[in-house]
């Protein structure tokens, strides 16, 4: 018997890593979409679309400004602060911590794959899952919001509607990346990430009242300047939706991507030190 390491054709280090990454993504996507928990994700993503559809069927007296503000509110207050947050929590915490809970992580760690490749691939699979599902949810909500009245058609086909849609999809994608990286890193730090997740939620909620240097340590700080619609919320609640010191959109996008990359780098560093100790999990 000879080792396959010796007889196997060497495809080169980076092609090999790409192949391994793709296989990890494939397995993870299969896991994400075949599990019962994917129904929860679909529910979170499409619940607003159902509600909008129900309204669209009954209520024919729509005005464009009103619908646009309602959709803006749904994206800003429901999707980013609730749907994407909890959807990402469910998906990204499960990537590594879930494998520990199911006692299958050792199979991955015993494979001839760098752990960093595993973590980055799992993150990409989580991002693909959440961006696809929430992107589809937002797309459905957007379509249902404007499809049923003439002014809505014009807004989408001849007005700034598609630009709004692009902005919403960008916000959702960045939210998935940012929260995903945070939850993945958290799952590598804590055995039970529920309490830290509540802390993150609280931090995101109070982000509006924090000084600027602390605001930068949150995902919503980078997302707020990207919303195409400002919500007409006055008083104390305005703190949670109004951008006090707006960041240019390009800087917001770059900032969030850098933030995601840094958190992901931390997750890679952390996973190298992770021990497979099922008895203590």
């Amino acid at each position, binding site marked *: *018997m*000879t*080792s*396959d*390491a010796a007889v*196997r054709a060497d*495809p080169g*280090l980076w092609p*090999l890593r790409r*192949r*391994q990454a793709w*296989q*990890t993504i494939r*397995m993870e996507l299969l*896991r994400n979409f*075949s*599990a019962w928990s994917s129904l929860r994700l679909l529910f979170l993503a499409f619940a607003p679309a159902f509600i909008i559809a129900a309204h669209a069927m009954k209520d024919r007296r729509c005005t464009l400004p009103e619908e646009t503000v309602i959709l803006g509110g749904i994206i800003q207050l429901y999707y980013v602060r609730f749907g994407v947050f909890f959807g990402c929590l469910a998906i990204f915490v499960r990537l590594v911590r879930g494998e520990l809970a*199911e*006692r*299958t992580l*050792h*199979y*991955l*760690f*015993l*494979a*001839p*794959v*760098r*752990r960093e490749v595993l973590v980055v691939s799992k993150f990409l699979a989580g991002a693909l899952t959440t961006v696809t599902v929430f992107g589809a949810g937002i797309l459905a909500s957007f379509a249902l919001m404007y499809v049923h009245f003439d002014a809505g058609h014009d807004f989408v086909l001849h007005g700034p509607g598609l630009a709004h849609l692009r902005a919403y999809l960008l916000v959702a994608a960045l939210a998935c990346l940012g929260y995903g990286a945070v939850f993945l890193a958290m799952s590598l730090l804590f055995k039970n990430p529920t309490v830290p997740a509540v802390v993150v939620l609280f931090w995101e909620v109070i982000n509006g009242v924090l000084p600027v240097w602390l605001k930068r340590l949150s995902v919503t700080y980078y997302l707020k300047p990207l919303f195409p619609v400002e919500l007409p919320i006055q008083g104390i609640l305005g703190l949670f939706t109004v951008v006090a010191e707006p960041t240019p959109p390009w800087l917001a996008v770059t900032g969030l991507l850098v933030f995601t990359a840094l958190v992901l780098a931390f997750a890679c560093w952390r996973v*190298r*030190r992770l*021990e*497979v*100790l*099922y008895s*203590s999990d």
Partner: protein
Amino acid sequence: MTAERAIVFDNVSKFYGEVLGINRVTLSLPPGVTGLVGPNGSGKTTLLNLMTGLIRPSRGQVSVLGMSPNDPEAFGQRVGYCTQVDAFPNGATARSFLQGWLRLSGLDRAEADRAAAEALERVGMSEAGDRKLAGYSKGMRQRIRLALALSHRPEVLVLDEPLNGLDPMARAESLALFQGLGREGLHVVVSSHILHEVDRICDHVVLLSHGYVVAEGQIHGVRGEVTEHPMQIFVRCDEAHRLAAGLLSETHVVEVKLHPDGKGLLVRTRDASAFHRLLNRVVLEAGLDLEALAPADDDVGAVYQYLIGSDTEAV
């Protein structure tokens, strides 16, 4: 033995918080079959997990064929580990599980399919390979874990209680397989509490107790070092009572028990070499007809009992 050809533990300790896993273990395991023997909680699985990089030493260093477990790309190609953990990904069949793992290891689809089929064949699971793992018996799941450890043809095969749950036929086949791999020059490290099976296949043993290595080496050598327990030797000859009288003339022979049929002796001696010389002399001088001579406690079971004490799990 150079480090490139051995599994080396250099003063390795592992603590789980304040709980000791293993302490100050220094070992160099050569190719062949090595048996890891010890009661529950003695540190066998800790040692195997350290060997395969699933956990890290609190102190000291582990290297396998000169590689560090911290370099998974090279390490995983040459090491296979059959753990005791009885869990598999949800919904997988044995074949899809093996194929997925092999593709993750870097094989393309065709190579992975071929290697998975070969591994299933090797553990006698070809026919059941397309059934869901969730419907398997414990023994079948154990065989799939073994197939996974073998599937990429590693040079080092680490097996944690690999015979658990197997029926007698599968046990015999697995033991023959391990022995065959050992003869081919692979490192096969087997932890087991079934001492007579370890004894049958192992060239080398490591005895663990409470996180410490109590003894290590070829079983005969280890037994020879247990001087506080005189060696037991069974002798059959035509006039056992005359032989007994002759043997008792020397001080290293501490006890002679006569077999009820009058044709056998169980001798306990502190010096096996001196005993064999004495036996030759007595047999020649008395003109006795010697039928058989065999060590009675030169096995893992006896060594285990002497060094670690009896344990209900050790059979």
